[in-house]
């Protein structure tokens, strides 16, 4: 499903760093502090062991508040995705195509991250493919996860 078979298909790009700003709260700050150090952590309920994501004030199963932050391997599986071919804002005109993806983390009860795919051509993307984490340093102190085919 390439837009034009006669042109060489580009590698997936990334949305511009200028559009990325974070507004963490007390529950999400530990996640972003960890990503800034290139560590992927996911909160798990200390009472019943349920992972919850995004990080939030309560366990949705047992309503316990306290979490432990469990470090992840950086492996993932592609759950679904889209290819943004058309820039919805002028700000992203030079950044298409980019590939927002939903990535399932193993051994977390199905926690999914939303992150861009990189180092891949859009037509090569397949749901179910194995992925590995690539850190994207966006600004000073702001790092977000992206993934590439493993």
């Amino acid at each position, binding site marked *: 499903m390439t837009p034009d078979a006669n042109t060489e298909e580009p590698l997936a790009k990334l949305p511009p760093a200028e559009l990325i700003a*974070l507004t963490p709260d007390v529950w999400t700050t530990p996640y972003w502090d960890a990503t800034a150090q290139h560590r992927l952590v996911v909160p798990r309920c200390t009472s019943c062991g349920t992972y919850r994501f*995004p990080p939030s004030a309560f366990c949705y199963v047992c309503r316990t508040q306290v979490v432990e932050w469990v470090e992840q391997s950086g492996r993932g599986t592609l759950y679904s995705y*889209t290819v943004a071919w058309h820039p919805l804002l002028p*700000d992203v005109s030079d950044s298409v195509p980019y590939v927002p993806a939903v990535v399932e983390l193993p051994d977390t009860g199905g926690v999914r991250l939303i992150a*861009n795919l990189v180092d891949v051509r859009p037509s090569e993307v397949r749901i179910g493919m194995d992925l590995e984490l690539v850190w994207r340093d966006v600004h000073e102190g702001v790092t977000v996860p992206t993934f590439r085919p493993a």
Partner: protein
Amino acid sequence: MNMRDKAAVVGVGSTPYYKRGQSLPQTPLEMAGKAMLAALDDAGLTVDDVDGLALYSMGLGGDTSLFAQVMGIPEVRFTATLTGGGGGAAGSVGLAAAAIHAGMATTVVSLMTLQQAVSRFGTSYAPRGRPGAQYSAPPSPEKDFTSPSGLMGPGQMFAVLAMRHMHLYGTRREHFAEVAISTRENAIKRETSIMKTPLTLDDYFSARLIAEPLCLYDFCLECDGAVAVVTTSLDRAKDLRHPPVKVTASAHGGMGRWGQAITWMNMPDEYFTSSGHRPVAKRLWAMAGMTAADVDVALIYDHFSPMVIMQLEDYGFCGIGEGGPFVADGNIRYGTGSIPVNTHGGNLSEAYIIGMTHVKEGVEQIRGTAVNQVADASVALVTGGPASIPTSSLLLTR
């Protein structure tokens, strides 16, 4: 005792429908007023009869206070808004019926007014302070987990659901095309439609991809305009201008873990590739004592064509995962299909007023006055948008 058949829709009205920005210099409140006056006139009522407002999303473009003041509503006895966005469209009429059944008000107006001149819903999750993004959601800790990926519009987000539906069930772009093409066919015959030129499969596959697998024609229109619906008790309805259109059932809500749905993407795997409507559908059918087999015409919220397919599944017109082949077999065509869908041309081709055109069409079908009238239509299903909770629906009968 539930509210089944206790209230009836007695009036519908609208402004003309405009392409985005072309309703200027009218104001959103002005369009809301015009739509309400048209709906009251249709019913044979006046503003003096109105004592309630049952709304959803941004409804009046502001809240009830200014609208009631400007329009001179004698006394407001009920005013409430379903939370969320377009999901509450059909449910706003259910909210009106609930208020009437509860005895809190007698004549309740549901209304949507929309003007996208400076505010495009297509980029409603875009980062703020950028050209074209004035209407975007405010920054939040939750949005931090979505925005960096460049997901900034509902179309991109629903594309993610559609892609997985294709993966799981073999649904194809041809199936989405059938939704767009059949809906366009219905729109062509209507004066009110924005899109009146035929749409072919070639046109569909030549169109630019916006968010794969969705192309231009899988997206609804960007419009301005207003639609109002007047609901009153069934007893009172019997004395008014048109035969009553009974509110036989309505439901809204959804699973808590459907939650914010497309903006968090952690809905349970079991219903990730759904419209979020399944629990709402179950309650709707239970209240009505009916099933999909009883429905003569379905007005299915069509912001994005794959979500029509998922709603057909969730309301039981076909099995889960079978929606693609179901539409490909011609089942949703007006005139020939087993369940005509969006006989008014929908959000895709008539106009996008966040789902209220679907309610208007449902009423006209039951009255027997629709442009694309389904013969002897006596049961109409109207759904609100697949979205974060609440989603909603409404069953109208003769």
